[in-house]
């Protein structure tokens, strides 16, 4: 999550004082925010060397791992909240990681680009894959190897036995609760297992 307001909106889903695990934590922005504004503690998981260094420089507990290998390091329900922001779409084993998120955390929070946002739909109706602020890559070199929609996630969550506790879209730094599948470029879900 590069956008500050997106980050703050998502941080509000994390109860104060939580022990958190941030999967794909990037440079540690969210963990720093949660530490400073919500009294949270925990760890970030990151694969990129530069981001691991950035986290360490900011005093964020960071563990360098490839998420595709799963979360064997972490016991069931060992964190209050497991976050997976803007990461899901980069993973080959999307569903496995979603299950792992729900296994390790009492609460899971995910965000990802909503492919069904209306400008994307227009692109596709026009016969082209979308290239937008949230999906800035050409189809042939995108790291977004899983492109899903807000509505698709609701179906996957049901399939995997997840209970959605809260869900909304984000558009231009604001929460979108009416027709998020159409009106929001980012989808956010807060869920628990069972």
């Amino acid at each position, binding site marked *: 999550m590069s956008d500050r307001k997106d980050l703050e909106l998502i941080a509000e889903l994390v109860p104060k004082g939580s022990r958190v695990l941030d999967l794909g934590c990037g440079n540690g922005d969210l963990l720093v925010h949660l530490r400073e504004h919500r009294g949270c503690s925990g*760890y970030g998981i990151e694969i990129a060397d530069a981001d691991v260094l950035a*986290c*360490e*420089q900011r005093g964020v507990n960071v563990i*360098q791992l490839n998420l595709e290998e799963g979360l064997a*390091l972490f016991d069931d329900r060992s964190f209050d909240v497991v976050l997976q922001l803007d990461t899901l779409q980069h993973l080959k084993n999307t569903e496995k990681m979603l299950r792992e998120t729900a296994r390790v955390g009492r609460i899971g929070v995910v965000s990802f680009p909503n492919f069904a946002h209306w400008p994307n739909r227009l692109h596709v109706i026009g016969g082209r894959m979308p290239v937008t602020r949230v999906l800035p890559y050409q189809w042939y070199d995108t790291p977004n190897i899983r492109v899903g929609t807000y509505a698709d996630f609701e179906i996957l969550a049901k399939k995997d036995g997840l209970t959605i506790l809260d869900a909304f879209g984000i558009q231009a730094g604001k929460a979108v609760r009416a027709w998020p599948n159409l009106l929001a470029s980012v989808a956010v879900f807060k869920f628990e297992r069972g």
Partner: protein
Amino acid sequence: MHFAAPLPLASGASLRDYTLAYETYGTLNAAKSNAVLVCHALNASHHVAGTYAGKEKSEGWWDNLVGPGKPLDTDRFFVIGVNNPGSCFGSTGPTSPNPDRPESSYGSDFPVVTVEDWVDAQARLVDALGITTLAAVLGGSLGGMQALDWSLRYAERLRLCVAVATAPNLSAQNIAFNEVARRAIVTDPEFHDGHYADHGTIPRRGLRVARMIGHITYLSDDAMEAKFGRDMQKAAFDYSTQEIEFQIEAYLRHQGDKFSEYFDANTYLLITRALDYFDPAHGHGGDLTATFAKARCRYQLVSFSTDWRFAPARSREIVKALVDNRLDVSYAEIDAPHGHDAFLFDDPRYHGFLRAGFDNLMKELT
């Protein structure tokens, strides 16, 4: 530094009247809070950084990491390097005079020492320097095991434990390599049950083979392939089973020769045994999480992707135990080609990561 009080050892024996060779770099601050202890691995010493006056090629073994302006910055930290008892670089060891037989050296009568014994000895040195709490204890490989042991048995006496390319214990394969090295030494006819000094000999052949096998395990397959491949020693083969045909053979023989000139055979046996014995979870039924329940400090761990002797998976076991205990830990898994030896190289990702950790530590202290 001389210690008159006997050091009780894990074996039940004790080391009486011993000396520890040590060096320090930088200045201890008034609060005595900026001290960092550096623990050495198999064949290193207290000479961690810098060069000796008039000796150009005398860089410390971790000189690329430790020094003024370096990741462990001696302009800000007071760094202590200490040679462990049983070693052969100045501290009391098998080559020191045996108090029971003053005319000869200890040889193989030197008591077996463990990582825990070393850490106890280091703690006495730290006491003698008037330091209660170390800012950090740092080590790679066997040195990393010492750093981990500090964090377990002297949990309140350090803020940060930096353990690089290490493991919570040795695997069967690791012990096996050590055993081959030891057998090479003790079956050398010049070994004389470890009292070779009394016979005026040195088991050089055994030491050479021990070093050769060790050296193979410190390098990755890829690194060796890149450096030597099947490069030949001469333009054509000699069709000899004895002559050097491939450059890798020349390299290993050279390493073995060099090593056998400066390293003591009994020390090699003792240090490989200390490696074998280290297993802090042993007293907790193998449960590493329970083992680290008493730890209090922050941790910084590093492993290297091609290190098959102390593989990343072994560091992850430690990370898991720390996470289970909700301890602060950062862990970098550096994709480096050099195998176990990578911990002695100055990869910018690795050194940048350690530098960031020491910078944070300095902020905490000031």
